């Protein structure tokens, strides 16, 4: 999420208090929210729907698994106890270049839509609890 993490910090300072900044955050906050007054909506929310679709495409596919695999392989894992051969770490570093490409392509698609950064391309969106969605015939 593109957030400024330099905002006010209270107490011990472990809790991040970002302020929503940038389009990706705002879309996430407002998407499909609020009272609906269908009768008057003269505009189609093309931009928003595209975003929703974009986020869903990334979810339900083998690609999701490949991304988990990629994330697992890309990392220099933290050593706990036993220890692993050094060449694993070198391998990791070599892999990371190719790995980022995958993620980059997904972010790129989203960026094209939002014009902003977003690390949440894997996030599933669904319409949140729908608020009053009563329809009236137009005047």
């Amino acid at each position: 999420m593109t957030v400024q993490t330099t905002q006010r910090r209270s107490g011990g300072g472990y809790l991040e208090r970002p302020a929503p900044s940038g389009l990706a955050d705002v879309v996430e906050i407002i998407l499909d929210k609020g009272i609906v007054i269908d009768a008057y909506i003269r505009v189609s929310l093309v931009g928003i729907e595209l975003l929703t679709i974009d986020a869903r495409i990334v979810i339900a596919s083998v690609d999701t698994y490949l991304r988990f695999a990629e994330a697992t392989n890309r990392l220099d894992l933290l050593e706990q106890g036993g220890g692993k051969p050094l060449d694993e770490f070198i391998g990791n570093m070599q892999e990371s270049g190719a790995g980022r490409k995958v993620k980059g392509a997904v972010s790129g698609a989203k960026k094209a839509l939002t014009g902003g950064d977003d690390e949440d391309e894997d996030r599933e969106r669904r319409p949140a609890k729908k608020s009053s969605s009563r329809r009236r015939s137009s005047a």
Partner: protein
Amino acid sequence: MTSAADVTADDRSSPGPEGPEVGWFVYGVVGAGTPVPQDLTGLDEGPVRTFTCGRVAAVATQIRVERPPGRGVDLLAYHSVLDALAQGDHPVLPVRFGAVVPDEVGIVEEFLAPDEAYFAELLESLAGRSQLMFQAVYDERRILSEIVESEPEIAELRALTKDLPEEAAYAERVRLGELVARAVEARREMDAAALLDEVLPMTDAHVLRPVSGVERVVDAAVLVHDQRRDQFENRLERLAEEHHERMRLRLMGPTAPYDFAGGV
């Protein structure tokens, strides 16, 4: 906050941008008499106006409708108007982005009037409460290390695939990803439940948003009573400290009650 132009349906003096194709973009509903920051502007920098009907008022700006709103700047403007209203002491009921009413009379007589009582009741239920967004995100490196460490099949598949080019060992990669995804999901369920057990009792309402991917643990919109805000934030601060090695906790807001516009 100073009171902005508070007009009623009788006030039809504003001609707006030239050309007939104008409409009123509605941001939200507030209680009648709610002060609106004087210099508040919305889409296309249009000055914000309020239209009162009984106990409630609509907050709107005039826009040209040849170009449907929906650009990024429009979303940001919408959010910033509602955010500004939410910073005040009075509740605001967000209207979903994209609501455009043809004229002032329509706002009052056709949007507000039929549901005046309903809106007033919703505003009442939101008074003295704020929406906050609470998220927990795994330290990816930490969580994946835990998983590789604790599940031999994953460690094996990882060792097998990680030095191969991307095209190679496709089936093994998919299998690895599937196992890791499941392992993350299992941990997420446990960690999320533990966090929510601590946090939700201090909220008046909550909406959990689905999370997926490697990092997200919890994504929740919560409605917190103003009198419990400090307690709530202190609890989160304590949790953030407790868990900081495995995950980061974030708190955003207060925002307008986007997730609770349908009532609590």
